């Protein structure tokens, strides 16, 4: 438990945090990626139903603390077509645990004209800022790691997935109500995730189209998204991919998210008019990624919880 009035961090830890932020800024300055600071407070927010949003202000006219700077950074991409990054605080409602704080520092950046692979190489360069020994990062296929650690194919039916999940000590309520996708998430987070990047960081790619978020689908195989995640010591550090640039496809995905929210009784927000306008104006082909800076520091320093590398973290 943190004492009132105390940050919970030593001066050395505070210095290490500051050094990482400075190194990130120096890296991007050296390669001509420009820092931007888009607003944290907007009248709408991410539609992803699994990101719990933090609404503030009057209930009749709520505003939202942003869970990522994605939408407005895409406006800047459409408007200027230049590489940009944002390093700042983002917010999630009710996320608190060893790897979660309701407010944390995210590094998000976009590279117009870059492929996902180019961007993954640059993610490794950022990793090297804290861990110079990281030279090569392997890439694992989502489907293969799922099969390897669960002995099931991710396309297995609900019954088979539930049976496998039952052995993990899952509440009856969850087992009875979860749809196949939720069971797949459960198996991935319980059986696969803890094994990822144990010795050194690894990428996972080949995520299924349902988990594309706002990444484009692979033109060679439209059942897969051009999206990647980075894991180190079982901790998800970054999430990125090639950006979806078609307005129609974007509308379909955003509407599906909002429909899911409606059915699940979650807050339903307005379609993001800024994001729509950016797509109408024309988003250049680009790759983008969001990286959890606190988690990166936690892994690099061998700390056990993000709260151990963040000042004034919540218990």
């Amino acid at each position, binding site marked *: 438990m943190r004492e009132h009035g105390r940050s919970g961090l030593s001066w050395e830890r505070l210095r290490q945090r500051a050094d990482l932020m400075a190194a990130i800024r120096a890296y991007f300055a050296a390669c001509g990626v420009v820092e931007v600071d888009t607003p944290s407070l907007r009248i709408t927010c991410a539609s992803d139903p699994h990101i*719990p949003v933090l609404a503030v202000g009057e209930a009749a006219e709520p505003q939202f603390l942003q869970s990522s700077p994605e939408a407005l950074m895409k406006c800047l991409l459409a408007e200027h077509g230049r590489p940009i990054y944002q390093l700042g605080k983002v917010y999630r409602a009710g*996320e608190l645990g060893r790897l979660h704080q309701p407010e944390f520092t995210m590094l998000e950046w976009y590279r117009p004209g870059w492929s996902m692979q180019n961007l993954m190489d640059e993610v490794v360069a950022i990793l090297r800022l804290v861990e110079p020994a990281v030279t090569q990062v392997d890439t694992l296929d989502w489907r293969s790691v799922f099969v390897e650690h669960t002995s099931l194919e991710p396309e297995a039916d609900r019954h088979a997935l539930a049976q496998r999940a039952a052995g993990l000590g899952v509440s009856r*309520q969850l087992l009875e109500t979860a749809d196949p996708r939720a069971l797949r998430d459960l198996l991935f987070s*319980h059986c696969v995730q803890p094994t990822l990047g144990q010795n050194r960081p690894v990428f996972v790619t080949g995520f299924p189209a349902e*988990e594309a*978020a706002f990444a484009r689908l692979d033109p060679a195989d439209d059942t897969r998204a051009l999206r990647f995640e980075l894991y180190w010591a079982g901790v998800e550090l970054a999430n990125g991919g090639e950006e979806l640039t078609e307005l129609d496809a974007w509308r379909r995905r955003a509407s599906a998210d909002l429909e899911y929210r409606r059915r699940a009784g979650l807050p339903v927000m307005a379609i993001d008019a800024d994001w729509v306008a950016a797509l109408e104006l024309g988003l250049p082909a680009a790759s983008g990624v969001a990286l959890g800076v606190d988690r990166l520091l936690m892994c690099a320093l061998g700390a056990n919880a993000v709260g151990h590398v963040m000042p004034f973290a919540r218990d």
Partner: protein
Amino acid sequence: MTTYATNQFKSGLKILLDGDPYTIVENEFVKPGKGQAFSRVRVRNLKNGRVVEKTFKSGDTVEGADVMELDLQYLYYDGEFWHFMEPVSFEQYSADEVAVGDNKIWLKEQDVCKLMLWNGSPISVEPPNFVELKVTETDPGVRGDTSGGGGKPATLETGAVVRVPLFVEEGELLKVDTRTAEYVSRVKE
């Protein structure tokens, strides 16, 4: 009836799972990169002390367990139940063999114990950390040896057997640590 959502989970919370009362030891929020969040908790069964892991969907609710801890005075054993009394209200509670378990060897009349009650009935009995008990049986003391080295077994008035220094004699009152079952000192009456 109280229910708790997963975002209210924290260590020490008492919940009901599959009909048994549990206390949350540790709560972890688990989330894949994109997708549903889960609460993974380590919980201890308050009836048998076993620790298990359980996963809930974020937002699921569980029933709270009506569990409370009371400081009660031990009165007597009737051959089947151990009887306790609340010292202010004089309300009495009886605990069975399962609830008392291995701690029965530390229960001395008048001592104040911690009882965990579930739906009003005792499910566990915790004796004081230190109890004073009379030696009912031990080998004769060795005169002049006050070093405390070596040691011998001594049976106490409640049936507990502890290792004591060689100078301890029958009829003496001893202070014993119930958590480790170790002799602490002699007590002057």
